[in-house]
Each structure stands twice: as structure tokens, then as C-alpha cells.
């Protein structure tokens, strides 16, 4: 609870951190801390969205469900973004499932409060629109990439995107999960991950992946990582502190 004259702490979410301090202070009383628990479903397909989330750590996977029970990942959202774009875009739901892939924490705002603040605060509206465009670039690029590029390239790209959204160089991940996310057979992930590991770009051990050579991994990815990343950096600015040197 922020008292009058007291500024909130520097947010870990990049969108909130980019707001002018006065505007952030206006929003702060309507943001509540929330946990992002592993595999928690924040938004179910076709269900009305009741709250939006600004991740501080961890990230979520946006999944497109298929009739046969499988689903394909169409996007990632972490501390660079906001979960619940359908509310911003004046819908109240979408057809995707939003599931926590790496656990962490977020700031949560009720959908009604969010709509009011978007109407009231131009800087908030502006940065959310730019994030929406950056996210669209990521999702559309994923569509193009899935149609053309091979497992090695897609896996490298995906690992770079995950790396951008976690603190440090390691995060929990299994071949099973990667298989689900990329929509390919698990044995194909095993082969592709083996190739990346043999090249020294990653290390995979007991359900955990560590990025050991970032430039190497960038070279192994298709151009799709760089194109979406440049779009995001252009719209939102590169990450503060740039602990992720970006070679391309």
C-alpha cells in the first residue's frame, strides 16, 4: 500500500519500469503481488479474462489447443510484458491457454481497474500498445518459422527467447516439455539438444538447461530470433543493464 508522497519501488517488470514515476504511483495501489506457480493456468481458452498480470520473474507460455488434445506454443511472455492483452484490445478473452512455464512472481490488476487506468493514463496506454506490437512480431514470426525452419534452428531460437526471460543462465526444462512447446516428437528434441550440447552451446542435466555459449546459440538459430528481437528493442528499448549481450 503506497502512502501519499511515497513512491513505489523500482518495478522488475519492464513495462511498469518504463512509466514516468508519477504515473506508476497512480497505478501502484491497484497492483497486487501474485505468485506464478509452475504449470498454473492463468487464462483458459475461451474463458473471460478477469485479471491481467505483469510478471516480475518467471514467464508464461501461450498455447494454441488442438482438437486431438495436443497444443502448440505460439508465444512466451515474461518480465518484458503483460499477460491479458485481450482486455487491452477490447476483447474479454481469447482462444489460447496461458500457462506458467518457469515459476516466479507478478503484479496483478483486476480487469476492470486495468481498463480504467488504460483510459486514464496515456503513458500506460502507449507502452502497452508498443508491447502488443512487439508481441505480435514474436507470434507472427513464430508462425513463419514453424512453417519453414528445422528442429535445430527452432530449438536454438526458443532457448534464446527463454534465456531472455530468466535471471541467470540456467532454468528448469525437460525434453518432454520442449517437445510439447515446439510441437515435435521428443526424440527429435533429444537429437537437436544433443547437437547443441556437443557444440558447447548448452548443458542439459536432470531437468535443467544452462546456456553456456550465447553467441554460439545465436549463430545456431534461424534469423527469426534476431528479427523479432530487433523489433522488440526498437519498440520498447533494449533491456536495461543489458546482461544479455546481443550479437546479431
Amino acid at each position: 500500500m503506497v502512502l501519499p508522497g511515497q513512491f513505489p519501488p523500482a518495478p522488475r517488470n519492464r513495462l511498469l519500469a518504463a512509466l514516468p514515476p508519477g504515473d506508476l504511483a497512480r497505478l501502484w495501489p491497484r497492483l497486487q503481488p501474485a505468485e506464478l506457480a509452475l504449470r498454473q493456468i492463468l487464462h483458459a481458452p475461451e474463458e473471460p479474462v478477469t485479471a491481467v498480470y505483469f510478471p516480475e520473474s518467471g514467464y508464461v507460455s501461450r498455447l494454441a489447443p488442438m482438437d486431438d488434445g495436443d497444443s502448440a506454443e505460439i508465444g512466451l511472455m515474461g518480465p518484458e510484458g503483460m499477460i491479458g492483452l485481450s482486455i487491452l484490445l477490447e476483447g474479454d478473452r481469447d482462444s489460447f491457454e496461458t500457462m506458467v512455464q518457469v515459476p516466479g512472481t507478478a503484479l496483478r490488476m483486476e480487469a476492470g481497474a486495468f481498463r480504467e487506468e488504460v483510459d486514464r493514463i496515456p503513458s500506460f496506454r502507449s507502452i502497452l500498445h508498443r508491447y502488443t506490437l512487439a508481441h505480435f512480431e514474436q507470434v507472427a514470426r513464430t508462425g513463419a518459422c514453424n512453417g519453414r525452419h528445422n528442429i535445430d534452428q527452432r530449438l536454438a531460437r526458443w532457448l534464446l527467447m527463454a534465456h531472455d526471460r530468466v535471471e541467470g543462465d540456467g532454468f528448469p526444462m525437460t525434453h518432454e516439455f520442449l517437445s510439447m512447446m515446439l510441437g515435435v516428437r521428443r526424440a527429435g528434441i533429444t537429437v537437436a539438444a544433443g547437437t547443441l550440447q556437443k557444440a558447447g552451446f548448452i548443458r542439459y542435466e536432470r531437468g535443467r538447461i544452462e546456456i553456456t555459449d550465447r553467441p554460439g546459440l545465436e549463430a545456431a538459430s534461424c534469423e527469426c530470433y534476431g528479427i523479432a528481437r530487433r523489433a522488440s528493442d526498437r519498440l520498447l528499448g533494449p533491456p536495461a543493464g543489458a546482461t544479455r549481450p546481443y550479437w546479431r
Partner: protein
Amino acid sequence: MPGSRFYYEIRDGGILARDDEGQVFADGKAAREDAVMLLTEMARSLPGRGKDKNKITARVRDGAGKLIFTATLSLDVEWND
């Protein structure tokens, strides 16, 4: 229906990948379907190699190490000269 654990051994040119963890499938037919899909997905890696003869092989064994089937994807170009 509990299913059984099956183990892949994949050979692609000089690269060999062995899956020591294995995967559970309902039966050999389900494992076969997975292998066919796997090879179809891996075929995407063939363009750009510039080779006239390409072969990716998936051998699937049971928990006792017995070979159940071998699935092969071949893509050959025969020049007419």
C-alpha cells in the same frame, strides 16, 4: 492401459543419438506412429546439405534391448547423365 517403455537410437549420417530415458507408448504400433512422425519432422533438416543421398534411421528397442523395428527415411536424387 499402462503401455511399455521404448528406446530410440537415431542415426543421421555421422550423427548417432541414443535415448537412454525411453518413452512410454501403448504398444509397438503407437511407437511406430511416433517414429514415422519423428522422421517426417527431421526431414526438414535435409535441405541445405547438398547431398544426393540422405538417410535418417530410427531403431526402436524394448526395455530388454530387443530391436522392435527400424524406420528409415531416404531421400535420393538420381542425376540423369
